[in-house]
Structures are given as structure tokens and as C-alpha cells.
């Protein structure tokens, strides 16, 4: 078998890999929507906490923004899939999905179970002012979701997601030292702005790209 034959196949795999990666950027719009929802929701909650407005105002805005992202996700997915002709469901997406499930669902559930256990709850309620409790809970989520983002970055070989993850975990350390109340701002500025900007960047790049195929014959 000629060396040229092998080289041709490698070249083909590289070209196709490039096209597949470029087209996957269309899904950036979904990341952007989630980033925006988290940013609006978390910043609103931060304002509510700082101004000592009743918590349910912030909670309502947070729920509305997250619900909007949740509802628009399948609609956007359907639109992207219609335009591309396929769904983003290959091995890489599966691995990312599974890693998020492991980190956020298993890690997050365990965290909340520990948090709501009677001895831990007692310690927290006895020592923290009520305004800081939500920030204290969120600090744990900064670490959990930060690890999730880092894992996503490692699996997908994306530096940006890894950096967002590092920033999230790092911001949890800062929040722990300056005040739990600022966890909302930390979440909005790291996850929210991070996913919003990378999502928009990816989507813009997809929109600008020339959608050509690879001639294999």
C-alpha cells in the first residue's frame, strides 16, 4: 500500500474534521442563550441581595430567564438541525453530555443532600445572616459547574471552556474570602459572560464561514 494512499486518507480526515468542527459552531447560539439567561438572572439576584429587596423578585427574574433558555433550546436545536441536515450527537457530544451529567447531576445532588442534612443546615442557619445563605449555596455550584466546564474544555480540547472553569473555581475562592453575597456576581461574570461571549463568537464564525464540502472522488 503506497504511502501516498495513507497520506490522502489522513488529509481527508483532517479536512472533514475541520468542516465538522466549523459547522458545530452553529450550536454556539445555544451556549450564548444560556450565558445570557444566567447573566441576567444572577445579576438581578445580586441587585436584590445588595439592595435588600425581597428575595422573590430576584428569584422570579432568575426563573423566568432560565425557563426562557430552557424553552428556546429545543427550538434553536431544531432550527440548526434543519439547516445543517444532522444532529450534533456524535461521540464527542455524548462524552460532554455524560461528563456534565456526572459532574452537575451526581456532584450537584450530593452537594445539596449534604447541604440540607440537619447537622449542616443547623450550623449554617446559626452562623450566617439570611442574606448570605443563597450566596453560600451558589459558591458550591461555582465549584461544581467550574469543574464541569473544565472537563468539557479538556474533552473538547477547548481552552476557552477550561479557562471559564478555572475562573469559576477561582472566583469561588475569592467569594469565600470577601463575602458569600458576591457569589451571584461571580456566577454572572464567569459562567454567564463566558458562555455568552464564546457562544456568540462561535455562532458568528459559523455564519461567516463558507459552507463547502470535501471532494472525495
Amino acid at each position: 500500500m503506497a504511502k501516498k494512499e495513507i497520506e490522502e486518507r489522513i488529509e481527508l480526515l483532517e479536512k472533514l474534521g475541520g468542516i465538522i468542527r466549523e459547522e458545530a459552531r452553529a450550536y454556539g447560539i445555544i451556549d450564548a442563550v444560556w450565558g445570557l439567561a444566567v447573566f441576567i438572572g444572577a445579576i438581578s439576584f445580586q441587585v436584590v441581595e445588595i439592595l435588600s429587596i425581597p428575595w422573590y423578585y430576584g428569584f422570579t427574574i432568575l426563573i423566568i430567564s432560565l425557563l426562557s433558555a430552557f424553552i428556546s433550546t429545543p427550538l434553536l436545536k431544531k432550527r440548526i438541525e434543519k439547516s445543517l441536515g444532522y444532529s450534533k450527537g456524535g461521540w464527542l457530544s455524548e462524552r460532554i453530555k455524560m461528563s456534565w451529567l456526572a459532574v452537575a447531576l451526581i456532584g450537584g445532588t450530593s452537594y445539596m443532600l449534604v447541604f440540607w442534612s440537619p447537622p449542616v443546615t443547623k450550623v449554617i442557619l446559626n452562623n450566617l445572616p439570611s442574606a448570605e445563605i443563597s450566596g453560600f449555596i451558589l459558591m458550591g455550584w461555582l465549584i461544581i459547574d467550574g469543574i464541569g466546564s473544565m472537563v468539557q474544555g479538556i474533552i473538547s480540547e477547548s481552552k476557552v471552556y477550561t479557562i471559564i472553569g478555572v475562573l469559576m473555581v477561582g472566583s469561588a475562592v475569592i467569594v469565600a474570602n470577601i463575602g458569600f453575597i458576591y457569589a451571584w456576581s461571580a456566577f454572572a461574570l464567569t459562567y454567564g459572560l463566558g458562555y455568552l461571549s464564546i457562544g456568540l463568537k462561535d455562532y458568528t464564525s459559523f455564519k461567516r464561514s463558507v459552507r463547502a464540502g470535501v471532494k472525495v472522488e
Partner: protein
Amino acid sequence: MNELEKLAKTLTNLDKTLHEKTRLAISTILFHRRKVDFNTLRRLLETSEGNLATHLRKLEQAGYIEVEKRFVGRKPKTLYQLTEKGRKAYRDYLTNLRKIIITEDRE
């Protein structure tokens, strides 16, 4: 077994069904995207309908892909996806290709 013999063995072990360029390209797309329709494959591979259909049939005969026909509105749509056997064959093919590259780099 020396390096050269190992290389020769790896070369003969390369899956002939997947080694053909169009079929390799189809499998690569299906490996990264779960279900892909006929027209999208045509767009991505810039090939004729007849040629694409022939290679898809060969992959189907090898048990590497499965076909799903459905209607979107009133239009029929044919979707293709890799079977578990196809997924494994593709992974093995890439592993063998990698071995060849490593061996060639060493020489």
C-alpha cells in the same frame, strides 16, 4: 516480529470497506454526527447521487450503517447512522492508521 513486519501486518489489517475514500468520509461524518440525511452527505462530500448511493449500499451490506426512512411534511427523508459494528470498525480503522503513521515516523 520487527517493525517492518508489524507495519505490513497493520496494513493488511486495514478494513477494506472503510479504506475506500468515499466510504471513509461517510463513516467519519456519521461517527461525529448521529443521524445524517442523504442530501447533507451529498453536500458535504460533493459527490453524485449514484456514487453516494453505491457506497452507502456497500456500508449497509457490511452492517456498518443502518437506514431510516421518514416523512418530513410530505417529503420523504432518508437518514443514515452508524451501527455499533460500524462504530467499532471505524475506531479500529483509525487505530490501525495511527499505528502506521507512528511506525513510519520512527523510520
